[in-house]
Every structure is written in structure tokens, then in C-alpha cells.
């Protein structure tokens, strides 16, 4: 589509493009140079701040344990979110109003409350009721589950409704009941197109584990930046390294989600467009929480 937006460049356009490229390129290089100079002035490029990252102890004692906690929290959160999402999307699609309405209320509520507040409340509020300690890990995971589960519930609902209605009509015509319709016809077709959405939500989960700072969960951000810099005094350097790690992991996951998208399309596993049906809309779930 993008190639359609402008004509194939002729000589004048090519010259204009070249000039713009040079101007913008120079501006970018100038900006990067200025940033480098400023970092240098403030001593942020001093060797003593960056040397800890060449020592394996830094990695094995701070960064890798933190990364492990992050990945563990994200994986646990993802599994539980899937369960939560399945249950509540089925609830919202139910024909019985006494199932549909409470499910709807729950999903809407947890999508509207900031994750930070939820994690903090679970950590302090639940023990207040049960008089038993609530570990930071589970506060974060339960908060993540409630939020991401609600997002996934909405995504599943959208996915099931995106299956062409002819499928449901045919199923009813041959006498299938609602339950069988869901199990044999709708969910299998919807599930494969939901795979990319699930993987992108995993990216969101990974980023949201960083919110564990409010309950001092020893995940990557806390360990790699706060505790490491308390030892070595290199707050900015540590943050840059930790950011690079996050970007690396999340880019890989995003790329994987895109690959999954293309794979399901290639394999023909996605419901195709029936003639006359509306063109599929833009990406369904873009929930940049955290």
C-alpha cells in the first residue's frame, strides 16, 4: 500500500529525496554527536561505570537472577491470563444474562484500573483480609493475570466474532448446540488467528513485570538498576544495559508474533474473506499498558 502513495521518483524527485536524506541524516548524526558529548561531559562514559558489565559476577549475581524472575513472572502470568481470558470470554458470549453481565463487569473493571494500583493493593490489601503474607511475586502475577486476562478475554471475544457468520449458521443448520458450536467450529478457527495477539500480549506482560518495583519484586529492573547501582554507582549505564536487554527480548517476541501471523495466513488456517464480507479491520488489540 505504501508504494502506492507516491509516484516512482523521477529526476527532480530523486534530487529532492537525496537532499532531504542528506539534511535529515546530518541532523540525526548531529543529534547523536551532541548526546555523546553531553554524556561524556557528565562522566557517564567513564570506564569505571561500564566496567562492571564486563565482569561475569555482575551478570550472574544481579542481571541474570533478575531476568529469571521477570521471565518466570511473565510466563506464569501468561498461563494464568490465558485461563482467565478463556473463562471470561466464554462468559461474555453466554446467552444467559446472569453469566454475561457479571463477566462483562469484571472484564471492564480490570481493564480500567491501572496495573500499578492493582499490584500495590493486592500486596497490602489481601493480607489485610487473610492475615497471611502475600509474596511480591504473586502480587505481581495476580495483578498481571487480572489485567491481561481481561484484555485477552476481549481479544478472544473479538476473534470469535470475526469468524464468518456462515460457519455458525451452518453449524446450527446441522443441529449443533451452542456449546458444540464453540468447541468444534468457532474456537479452533479463532484460536489460530489469536496466536499473534497472544504473543504480543506476552510482550506487554514482560514490560509490565517492571511495575513490580512498587512492591520491591527482585525482577530485572529492580536488580539490574537499583541494586546494581547501589553497589557500583552506575545508574545510567545500568539502565541503558537493562533497556537493551528488554528491547532485545521484546523485539524477538514481536518478530515472532509477526512471523506467526504470516504463518497462519500461509497455512490457510485463518478464516478467509467471504465475498461481500467487510474487509478485516486494523490490528485488534493495541493495549500499551506499562
Amino acid at each position, binding site marked *: 500500500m505504501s508504494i502506492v502513495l507516491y509516484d516512482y521518483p523521477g529526476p527532480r524527485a530523486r534530487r529532492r529525496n537525496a537532499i532531504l536524506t542528506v539534511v535529515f541524516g546530518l541532523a540525526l548524526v548531529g543529534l547523536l554527536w551532541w548526546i555523546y558529548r553531553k554524556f561524556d561531559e*557528565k562522566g557517564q562514559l567513564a570506564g*569505571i*561505570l561500564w566496567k562492571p558489565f564486563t565482569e561475569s*559476577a555482575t551478570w*550472574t*549475581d*544481579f542481571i541474570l537472577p533478575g531476568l529469571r524472575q521477570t521471565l518466570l513472572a511473565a510466563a506464569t502470568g501468561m498461563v*494464568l491470563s490465558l*485461563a*482467565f481470558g*478463556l*473463562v471470561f470470554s*466464554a*462468559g461474555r458470549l*453466554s446467552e*444467559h444474562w446472569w*453469566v454475561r453481565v457479571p463477566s462483562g463487569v469484571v472484564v471492564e473493571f480490570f481493564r480500567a484500573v491501572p496495573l500499578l494500583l492493582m499490584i500495590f493493593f493486592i*500486596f*497490602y490489601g489481601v*493480607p489485610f483480609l487473610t*492475615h*497471611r*503474607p*502475600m*509474596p511480591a*511475586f*504473586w502480587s505481581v502475577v*495476580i495483578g498481571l*493475570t487480572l489485567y491481561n486476562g481481561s484484555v485477552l478475554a476481549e481479544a478472544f471475544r473479538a476473534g470469535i466474532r470475526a469468524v464468518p457468520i456462515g460457519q455458525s449458521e451452518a453449524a446450527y443448520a446441522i443441529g449443533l*448446540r*451452542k*456449546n458444540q458450536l464453540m468447541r468444534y467450529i468457532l474456537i479452533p478457527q479463532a484460536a489460530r488467528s489469536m496466536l499473534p495477539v497472544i504473543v504480543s500480549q506476552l510482550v506487554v506482560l514482560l514490560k509490565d513485570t517492571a511495575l513490580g*518495583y*512498587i*512492591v*520491591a519484586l*527482585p525482577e530485572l529492573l529492580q536488580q539490574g538498576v*537499583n*541494586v546494581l*547501582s*547501589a*553497589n*557500583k*554507582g*552506575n*545508574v*545510567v549505564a545500568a539502565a541503558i544495559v537493562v533497556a537493551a536487554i528488554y528491547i532485545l527480548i521484546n523485539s524477538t517476541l514481536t518478530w515472532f508474533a509477526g512471523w506467526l501471523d504470516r504463518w497462519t495466513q500461509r497455512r490457510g488456517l485463518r478464516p478467509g474473506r467471504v465475498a461481500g464480507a467487510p474487509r478485516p479491520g486494523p490490528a485488534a488489540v493495541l493495549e500499551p499498558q506499562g
Partner: protein
Amino acid sequence: MRITRLVAVAAATVLALGVAACGGDGNDGGGGQGGATGVVGKAQSQKKLKIGVKADQPGLGLQTGSTYEGFDIEIAKIIAKGLGVDPASIEFVTTVSANREPFIQQGTVDLVVATYTINDERKQKVSFAGPYFVAGQDLLVPVNSDITGPESLDGKKVCSVSGSTPAKRIQTEHPKAHLQQFDAYSKCVTALAGGQVDAVTTDDIILAGYASQPQYAGKFKVVGKPFSTEPYGIGLKKDDKSGCEKINEILKASAGDGSYKAAWDNTLGKSGTPAPTLDASKLTNCG
């Protein structure tokens, strides 16, 4: 029938969540409640203790890789030994200022030795043994700063940890100072090094720990005029009288047999400051 299946899935999920949440804290049975027998009983029966400490305060409680080091850690080890627990069986739990009381109240830890100031507000939620050290709130400033004390803070930017006692004191007693709050002191000290704030405030001993780190050598000084008294105590479950009295006994003994002095010399004493003396007469009466 279809509803039953849905209900079954939902119930299974909820049950799994509940079991995971309750079992995931790794609690060791009745010892976690700690009510009747207190920390003394728990130490004797289980031969292990969970002690809450700080992880980001050099010299006092710092997580260096897989171990914790600092004056508070050494005191914790002395107390554990006195209660009959091998220091190697101590499980150190990182705490931050805000969750020390909840951790004790909920049994996440048995004791807290984390630069824990004794004050009346906290005494309503937990009990204190000690004090084992008396610090004072002070200011960390650049070596050539003209700040001489809290009265010269008006209009200046002061940094502290959000929700901590030093932060609250600045808010109430020196409202004309601009308070910048972070979630960790290391960020405050970085901001001080970069000139974004003019002073960092917390207990003088914590400030000294940061100032003596190699990367900040020669850049900062502690003003040296403490404007409060911060007696550090050992936090334990409220109304655990036997535990409180036993710990006070252990502290008294450590002052006598040199282990207190050794704890200081091996950690904060390395900067040259001589060990303080533990004033046994000031120990709380555990009433």
C-alpha cells in the same frame, strides 16, 4: 450440562489460583504465625529465621551478588546466634522502608534489622528491641556546598526516598525546601552527583555509607549536624515480649564480649570511624 462444564473450568482455575497463592509463599507451617511462641520459640524449634534487611545501603545492608553485607547484617547474625540459629541458616529478605511493618505483621519475616527507626507510630504495629545504634537525620552535600544544616534548605532541592521518615520530616518541618522523591537512595545520590538536587537527606550513617563508595570518593560530605535522633531497633511481632527481652539480652552480651565492636569494625568501621558504644541502659523495656 454446558453450564456445569463452564463452572467446572472456572472453579478449577480459581482453586488453582488460590492454592498457588497460598502455597507459593513457601511458608513453613505454624511457625509463620509466630503468635504464641514468638520468635524465640520459632528459632529453637525450626533452627532457621527469616530476617528482613536492606539491600541497597552500602555499609549497612547491601546485596553484593548472592550475599548481603553490612553492619545490620552482622547484628542480625549476632542475634541469630544468640537465639540458637546458625548464621548460615538465616534467610535474608530484602525489604524497603514501606513494607517493613507489613512484612512483620503478616509473618513474611520474623525480624527486621534494616535501619529501622523506633518511633511511636510504628510501635502501634510492631514491637522493637534495642536500640542497637543511634543515628540522626543529616544532609549529604557536595564538598563545596554552602548548605550548613536544615535551616539553609529553603528553596533548595532535597532528595529522599518516597514515604520515608526523613522525607516526611522535610515535608512537615521544612516546607520551603523542594522535595524530590525517588524509590531508592542510589538514585538520589546519582542526582546529587549530577547536580539535579542540592542535598540528599536520610540518616547520617546511611549517607556516610554512600559517600565512602569508591566512585564518589572525595565528592560529597555529610554536613555533620544531625537534626533528629533515629534509634535503630530490631523489629519483631507486636507484643512478643519474650522475644524482645531475649534480643535485648543478646545485645547487652554483644557489647560486653566484643562482637558488637567487631561487627562495626568489619563494616562501617573500615572508613576509620571508631565503633560506638552500645548503651545498655537505653534498651527498651519491652513493656
